[in-house]
């Protein structure tokens, strides 16, 4: 049962790591883009949020599944 906690940790950790790199790149490019062409900033922002939402989905789903594993599948181990 203890392995479930390790699984949940890997799930949340690696998911968050990947998404953090992704959103970091995305945000950096957004700033670069809107510094170069400020008049495009609102348009870029919409695309940025769309991209961030797409990237965001996988880690948040991972967190959901991990929470389910920790508190429902292996409830005794957590406490």
């Amino acid at each position, binding site marked *: 049962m203890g392995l479930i906690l390790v699984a949940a940790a890997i799930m949340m950790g690696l998911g968050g790591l990947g998404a953090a790199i992704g959103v970091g790149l995305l945000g950096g490019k957004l700033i670069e883009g809107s510094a170069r062409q400020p008049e495009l900033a609102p348009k870029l922002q919409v695309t940025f*949020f*769309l991209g*961030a*939402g*797409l990237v*965001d*989905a996988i880690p*948040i*789903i991972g*967190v*959901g*599944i991990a*929470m*389910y594993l920790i*508190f*429902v599948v292996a*409830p005794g181990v957590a*406490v």
Partner: protein
Amino acid sequence: MAGENQTVSEYIVHHLTNMTYGELPGGFERHDGSIISEGGAWVLARSGEEVAAMGFNAIHVDSMLWSVGLGILFCWFFRRMALKASTDVPTGWLNAVEVIVSFVDNTVRDTFHGHNKMIAPLALTIFVWVFLMNLMDLLPVDLIPYTLSLMGVEYHKIVASTDPNITMGMALGVFILMLYYSIKVKGFGFAKELSMTPFNHWLFIPVNLFMEVVGLLAKPFSLGLRLFGNMYAGEMIFILIAALFSAGLVWAIPAGLLQMAWAIFHILIITLQAFIFMVLTIVYLSMAHEDH
């Protein structure tokens, strides 16, 4: 919390169980000891074992009620506002509706380049409907289920978009529209697109077909699962924070603050997911309309 002597995991499982109406097989022993007569019977599930025993012959009553109810609310409200609209300066709710309509209209104009009068109303419906279903997530997790459990309803989930049946159903609807317009606009070109790209040679037809069909099927699948996963994870975290209240009075204030902080962050997520569902629908339908 519904029932004082629950463990945390029982509490969570209780909150994640839909109000299910389904057919129990004959001879099944119910929670109160009564036995289903020969031939089976259609009943409301009262426990997790009963839900499991129902199998495929079951419907989630709460998801259907909330999703259809919110859909009707959206149609009624937007129709009322459309009738009220005039050339005068808009006020109150009319203002909000006009902002939403023009926002969706602009997005469709930017993304969709074919000729189809159905896309903008479809996008508006999807956006507002998904948003309303997600918005139920912001109600306190115990408010409606606990009130209903006092009235004798054992299980009730108010967030319809945390039910994969609802989100996958919507994604399936979008998928059928994609197929319909692909065949209508491209005709035989659709079959050609599936079998001749990316490798334009008759020898590669099986490879192309496999790759394109997988790509095609992945679209509605990821569309439905993305919405479901986001809302499910969000709901899960709300429930976990709510479970903190059982840890005693010391935890009441931090838990309340956490609940509020997550709710504020969740406002972004529910709007963003509704927006993404809408934009991806438009993009997929736009791809269906592109005739090469």
